C-alpha cells in the first residue's frame, strides 16, 4: 500500500522540532523499506500544535497528528497502516472516521489555499494545484482592461493595511504612460504579531509570483521586485527557488508562454526598519537609500521606483489574484460584507488556544473568530482585550467583541484592520504597559523626518513610562491626549499618523487602569515591575528550596527547611517563584 506523509516545515514547525520529526520518518521509512512518499510542506496554520504530520492514504482520506515527537513515528506509521489512530495524541482531524477538525471548518481558504498542502519548493506541486492557469488565462483570453475590471468587480482591497481597492490602484498604473513600469510586492511585514505574509511566502511562493505577473501584464510592466524582510530567511530561500523554477519553465522571463509579454522578478532583502513597509520609504530603500517616506502625491502609480510608474501590493493581496481570475470575481465577492469583500487572513497570537493562521470570510464577528475558530482563551484567565492592527491599531475590549471584521467596522472602534495581526490579551496584561510597548516601538522606528512624530512620540513615551513607574499625575492623561492629536495632524506618513492609536484606544476603553497607576500607584495586572514586589510569606514557607532552585537569577536564599528570602535588589520580577511554589508561600503585591 502506498501513502503520503506530509510534514510542515515552515519556521513555526522548525522552531517546534519538525526537522527532527521529518528526519525520524525518513530514517524509519528507508530502514523498513516502506513505500511512502515523504513530503515537505509549509504552515497549515495550526501553529499551536506543531510539529504537524499528515498521513494521506491513496484514496485521499487523511489524518493529521499534532505535537508529534520523533519517538512516536514508528507507532504512528503502524497505526496508520492498520487504520486505528492512537488515542494519546492530539489528533487534529480524522477524515477516515468522518469527523473533521473544527479549526479548519469555519474557514474559507483562498489566499492560504495551498499553504500546508503543497511542497513550496516544487513547481510541479503548484502546477498540479491549478498553478499558473490564471496567468495562462489572462495572456490567452483577456485584455489588460478586462483583467483590471475583473479585479475591480471582485471588490478586493489591499491587505497591507490601508484597504485601498486593488483594481482601482491597478487602473491608475495602467493609465500612467511610460514604457517602463514596475510591480513591487511588499513583503516587509513589519507589524509585530503578524505572520501571514511569512506563511504565504514560505508555503506558496509561486502564488505571489503568479499574482505579480498578472499585475505586470495588466498594467504593462516588465520588471518586479519583492521586498522581503531579512528576518525571514526561509521565505527568501523559497522565493529564490520559485523564481528560478518559474524562469526555467517559462512563466517568467522573455516572451512568457510565447506571448508578447516579458517579466522578470528580483528579490530585495530588507535591512531592518519598520518604516520601510511604507510604500514610498520601501521604494527609497530598494533604490539603496535610507528608507524615509516622502509626501504623496505623486503616488507610486505615476512616479514610483526610479521615478517610473509603479504598482505596489501586499503579499496577501497578491495571493488572492490568481484565485480570483480562475474562479471569477463573483465567486470571490460572494464572501464578505458590502464594502469589504472576500476573506481575510488573521494571525492569532497571545493568550488564545489555537494560535496560528486562519482565513475567514469578512463580516465574521470578532467573538466567533476568537472563540470558535480560535478555540477561546488559552488559560482560565478571562479575556481582556484583543489588539488589532499592531502599532497603528488599538485594543478592542470585551464589550465590543460583536464588532464584525471588515475595514469600516474595525475602524469605528479606534483600532484598524491593519495587516490582520490579532493579539489576544487576558487579565494578566496591563493596558498601560501595552500602550507603552507600542509607543516604544513607533518611537524607535520613527525615521525622524517629521518633528511631531520624532519628538512627540518621545514625550508621550516619557509620560507613559512615568505612569508605569508610579510617578504619573492626573494632568498627564490630558497631555497624552493633546500630544496624540498633534502627532496625528503633524505627521507625513502613516507611521506618525497612527502612532497614538494604541494610547488613544487604551485611554478610551481602559482609562480606569491609567487612573489606578496614577492615583493608587498600583498595576492591577501586576506587570509594571516598579509597582510590584515578590515576597515570601514566612508562615507558609516550609523551606523546600524549590523556588531557590528555579530562580533564574539566584536571588532567593535559604537553607532546607528554613524560611527563604528574596533579595529585592537582584529580583527581576519574572514570577517563576510564584509559579513554582506548591505551598502558596510567595506573594505578589
Amino acid at each position, binding site marked *: 500500500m502506498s501513502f503520503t506523509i506530509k510534514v510542515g516545515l515552515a519556521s513555526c514547525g522548525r522552531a517546534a522540532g519538525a526537522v527532527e520529526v521529518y528526519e525520524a520518518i525518513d530514517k524509519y521509512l528507508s530502514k523498513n523499506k516502506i513505500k511512502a512518499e515523504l513530503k515537505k510542506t509549509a504552515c497549515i496554520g495550526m501553529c499551536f500544535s506543531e510539529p504537524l504530520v499528515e498521513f494521506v492514504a491513496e484514496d485521499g482520506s487523511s489524518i493529521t497528528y499534532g505535537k508529534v515527537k520523533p519517538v512516536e513515528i514508528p507507532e504512528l506509521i503502524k497505526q496508520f497502516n492498520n487504520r486505528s489512530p492512537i488515542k494519546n495524541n492530539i489528533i487534529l482531524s480524522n477524515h477516515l472516521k468522518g469527523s473533521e477538525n473544527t479549526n479548519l471548518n469555519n474557514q474559507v481558504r483562498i489566499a492560504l489555499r495551498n499553504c500546508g498542502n503543497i511542497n513550496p519548493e516544487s513547481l510541479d506541486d503548484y502546477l498540479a494545484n491549478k498553478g499558473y492557469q490564471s496567468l495562462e488565462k489572462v495572456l490567452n483570453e483577456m485584455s489588460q482592461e478586462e483583467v483590471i475590471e475583473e479585479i475591480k468587480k471582485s471588490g478586493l482591497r489591499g491587505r497591507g493595511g490601508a484597504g485601498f481597492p486593488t483594481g482601482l490602484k491597478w487602473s491608475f498604473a495602467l493609465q500612467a504612460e511610460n514604457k517602463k513600469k514596475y510591480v513591487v510586492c511588499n513583503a516587509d511585514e513589519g507589524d509585530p504579531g503578524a505572520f501571514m505574509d511569512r506563511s504565504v511566502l514560505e508555503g506558496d511562493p509561486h502564488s505571489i509570483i503568479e499574482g505579480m505577473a498578472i499585475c505586470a501584464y495588466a498594467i504593462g510592466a516588465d520588471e518586479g521586485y519583492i521586498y522581503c524582510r531579512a528576518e525571514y530567511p526561509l521565505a527568501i530561500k523559497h522565493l529564490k527557488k520559485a523564481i528560478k523554477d518559474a524562469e526555467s519553465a517559462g512563466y517568467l522571463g522573455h516572451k512568457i508562454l510565447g506571448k508578447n509579454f516579458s517579466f522578470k522578478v528580483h528579490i530585495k532583502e530588507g535591512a531592518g526598519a519598520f518604516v520601510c513597509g511604507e510604500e514610498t520609504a520601501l521604494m527609497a530603500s530598494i533604490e539603496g537609500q535610507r528608507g524615509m517616506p516622502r509626501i504623496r502625491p505623486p503616488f507610486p502609480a505615476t512616479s514610483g521606483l526610479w521615478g517610473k510608474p509603479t504598482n505596489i501590493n501586499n503579499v496577501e493581496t497578491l495571493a488572492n489574484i490568481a484565485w480570483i481570475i480562475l474562479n471569477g470575481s463573483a465567486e470571490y465577492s460572494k464572501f464578505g460584507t458590502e464594502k469589504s469583500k472576500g476573506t481575510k487572513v488573521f494571525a492569532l497570537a497571545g493568550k488564545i488556544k489555537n494560535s496560528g493562521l486562519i482565513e475567514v470570510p469578512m463580516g465574521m464577528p470578532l467573538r466567533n473568530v476568537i472563540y470558535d475558530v480560535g478555540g477561546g482563551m488559552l488559560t482560565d484567565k478571562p479575556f481582556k482585550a484583543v489588539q488589532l492592527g499592531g502599532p497603528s491599531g488599538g485594543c478592542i475590549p470585551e464589550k465590543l467583541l460583536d464588532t464584525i471584521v471588515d475595514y469600516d467596522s474595525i475602524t469605528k472602534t479606534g483600532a484598524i484592520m491593519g495587516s490582520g495581526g490579532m493579539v489576544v490579551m487576558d487579565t494578566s496584561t496591563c493596558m498601560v504597559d501595552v500602550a507603552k510597548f507600542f509607543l516604544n516601538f513607533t518611537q524607535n522606528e520613527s525615521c525622524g523626518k517629521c518633528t511631531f512624530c520624532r519628538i512627540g512620540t518621545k514625550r508621550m513615551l516619557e509620560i507613559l513610562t512615568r505612569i508605569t513607574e508610579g510617578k504619573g499625575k492626573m494632568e498627564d492623561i490630558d497631555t497624552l491626549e493633546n500630544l496624540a492629536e498633534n502627532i496625528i495632524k503633524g505627521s507625513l506618513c502613516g507611521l506618525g499618523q497612527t502612532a497614538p492609536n494604541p494610547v488613544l484606544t487604551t485611554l478610551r476603553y481602559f482609562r480606569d487602569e491609567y487612573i489606578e497607576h496614577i492615583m493608587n500607584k498600583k498595576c492591577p495586572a501586576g506587570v509594571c515591575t516598579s509597582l510590584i514586589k515578590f515576597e515570601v510569606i514566612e508562615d507558609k514557607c516550609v523551606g523546600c528550596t524549590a523556588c531557590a532552585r528555579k530562580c*533564574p537569577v539566584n536571588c532567593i536564599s535559604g537553607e532546607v527547611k528554613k524560611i527563604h528570602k528574596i533579595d529585592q535588589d537582584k529580583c527581576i520580577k519574572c514570577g517563576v517563584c510564584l509559579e513554582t511554589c506548591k505551598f502558596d508561600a510567595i506573594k505578589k503585591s
Partner: protein
Amino acid sequence: MIKNKKQIDEIISKFIGKKGSLIPLMQEIQNIERYLSIDTMRYLSEKSGVKLAEIYGVATFYTMFKLKPQGKHIVRICKGTACHVSGANSIARSLKQELNLKDNEDTTKDGLFTIMEVACLGCCSLAPVIMIDDNTYGKLTPDSVVDILKKYN
C-alpha cells in the same frame, strides 16, 4: 586595517554600476566582516565613489548594520507584541543576568554572545521566542532560556 580586502574588492566589482545596489553591497560586506568598521566604510566609499556620509547614513538607519564587532553567536530576543504579552521582558532580563550584561551592553566580555532585541520573528504562536544564530526557540520560560544558552559555546 581591513582584513578581507580581496573578498571586499570582489563584492564591490560585482555590484558596481548596478542601480540600487548599496544596501545589498553593504549586507554582503557585513556578512564576511561581521560588522562595518569606519575603515571598511571609508574604503567602500573610495572604491565605489559613493559619499561616506551616504554610506554612514544608510549604515546607521537600518538596524541590521552593525558598527561594532559582534559576538560569535547572535541572540535575537523577540520583543514583538505576542512575545511581549507572554513575558518577553522576563526572558530578556534573565538572559542579561546570565550573560552578565549591564543595561546598555550587548556583547559578552568573552565575545561569545551578542544579544539584540527584534520585533517579531514570525513565530508568534510559540511566544515568547528567541533566535540564536539561525535556530528558533519557542515557548520559553526565564529558566529554560538559561539552559538553551548552555548549548552554545
